[in-house]
């Protein structure tokens, strides 16, 4: 093996991620699926690492779900995106970071389309001016929020109070990493490691002390797939995708799944409940499931955040076995208390999934 040659090839799979000064846009669905993830991202980057991450309440959804469901045309989506870019320019930013993988894919698709068809970009400029009286500037750098956490992974590790290690055995936790399809499968050069060797989550796991699980269906879709899920008649296909992944990873006995997409943690989490309740099969130890967390939640855990402040009680699969392995202290009585201490009510227990 020629080491320098390998380094040269690997360098072609890298992406430039500026260190600071970003305009941040949230996801429309993550806030309801995993409500504390984005707040944790902002808290870590702004308060723990001292970075300049700006967000405005005036930004909207990117329109990605409607676009991928064939309910709005591409030009409409492009105009929505142009408005987001106009807000970024208005506030004096050139670097754009988005929370959602669907959005990230759509921004990449839009920028590439404009590069290929400049006349379309001119038309969208006109659309935006006619509809909002705004002018936009394209971002100098477009990154996903997981790119930033990847960039800061060693800074986070330096401030970490615990590692991804089983405190009872001293062994690293076995972590499955699942990359959202729209991160780098559509535009490989836009993701760290490209489509062949996506490294964005692997880098975090390595920096925080975990062990990567390499299993046959590692790059298989989580099962979201928009139309497979939205239409009830197709929902079995979504479920079967997830089932295929779990059957493939089960022999490796993973402790945790870490994801960077809004849909993936949702489906890898909720479909474990559906599989358990409809077939009786569970994939974790002793009738438990395998917790599927977002990268912000995992970063929060290693940095010592309270698991209930991270919103881990909103996951279908109970996280307590993972917290016990990591040595995280938590108060079970506070699991379903709101920010003001009010009892939110515990969900009904599952019959198969613990």
């Amino acid at each position, binding site marked *: 093996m020629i080491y320098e040659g390998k380094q040269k090839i690997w360098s072609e799979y890298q992406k430039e991620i500026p260190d600071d000064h970003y305009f941040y846009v949230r996801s429309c669905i993550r806030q309801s699926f995993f409500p504390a993830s984005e707040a944790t991202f902002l808290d870590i980057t702004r308060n723990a690492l001292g970075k300049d991450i700006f967000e405005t309440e005036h930004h909207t959804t990117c329109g990605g779900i409607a676009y991928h469901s064939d309910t709005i045309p591409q030009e409409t989506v492009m105009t929505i995106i142009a408005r987001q870019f106009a807000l970024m320019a208005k506030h004096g930013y050139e670097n754009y970071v988005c929370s959602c993988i669907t959005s990230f894919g759509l921004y990449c698709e839009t920028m590439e389309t404009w590069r290929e068809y400049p006349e379309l970009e001119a038309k969208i400029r006109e659309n935006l001016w006619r509809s909002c009286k705004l002018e936009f500037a394209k971002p100098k750098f477009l990154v996903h929020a997981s790119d930033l956490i990847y960039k800061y992974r060693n800074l986070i590790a330096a401030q970490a109070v615990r590692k991804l290690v089983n405190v009872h055995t001293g062994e690293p936790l076995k972590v499955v990493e699942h990359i959202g399809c729209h991160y780098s499968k559509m535009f490989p050069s836009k993701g760290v490691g490209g489509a062949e060797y996506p490294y964005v989550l692997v880098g975090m796991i390595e920096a925080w002390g975990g062990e990567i699980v390499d299993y046959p269906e590692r790059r298989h879709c989580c099962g979201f797939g928009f139309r497979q899920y939205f239409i*009830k*008649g197709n*929902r*079995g*296909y979504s*479920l*079967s995708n997830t*089932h*295929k992944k779990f059957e493939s990873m089960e022999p490796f006995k993973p402790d945790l799944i870490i994801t960077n997409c809004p849909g993936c943690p949702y489906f890898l989490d909720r479909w474990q409940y*559906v*599989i358990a*309740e*409809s*077939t*009786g099969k569970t994939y974790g130890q002793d009738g438990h499931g395998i917790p599927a967390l977002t990268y912000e939640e995992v970063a929060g855990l290693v940095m010592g955040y309270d698991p209930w402040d991270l919103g881990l009680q909103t996951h279908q699969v109970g996280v307590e076995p993972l917290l016990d392995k990591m040595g995280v202290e938590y108060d079970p009585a506070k699991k379903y208390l709101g920010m003001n201490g009010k009892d939110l009510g515990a969900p009904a227990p599952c*019959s198969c999934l613990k």
Partner: protein
Amino acid sequence: MVDFGFGLVPSSRINLDLFDSEKYEQLAEMEPDVRICMACGSCTAVCTAGKFVPTSLREAIEDIKNAKPDKALQMLESCQLCGKCSMVCPRGINTRHLILSISKVYSEK
């Protein structure tokens, strides 16, 4: 168990490692026309037996290519060799010969 109104669908995974290229070449030597089928489905559309039981030459050829020869034989066992399919094939394939050849080659274990 809970009924969610949807459930796991059977796997449609195709393992091409199981494809028997030797037998396929043997078939293609007997009936070179097997290579020119474009899976248009005209044969299936006019099939008399196909109106009553699953019978489809198009599917049988696909099954052979997808390493499922037993399913292909099952798909053709109700064929009456009436020959209507050969009259409509846009590629002019002698479908009756092809069906007989598939049965002969893939029945040999």
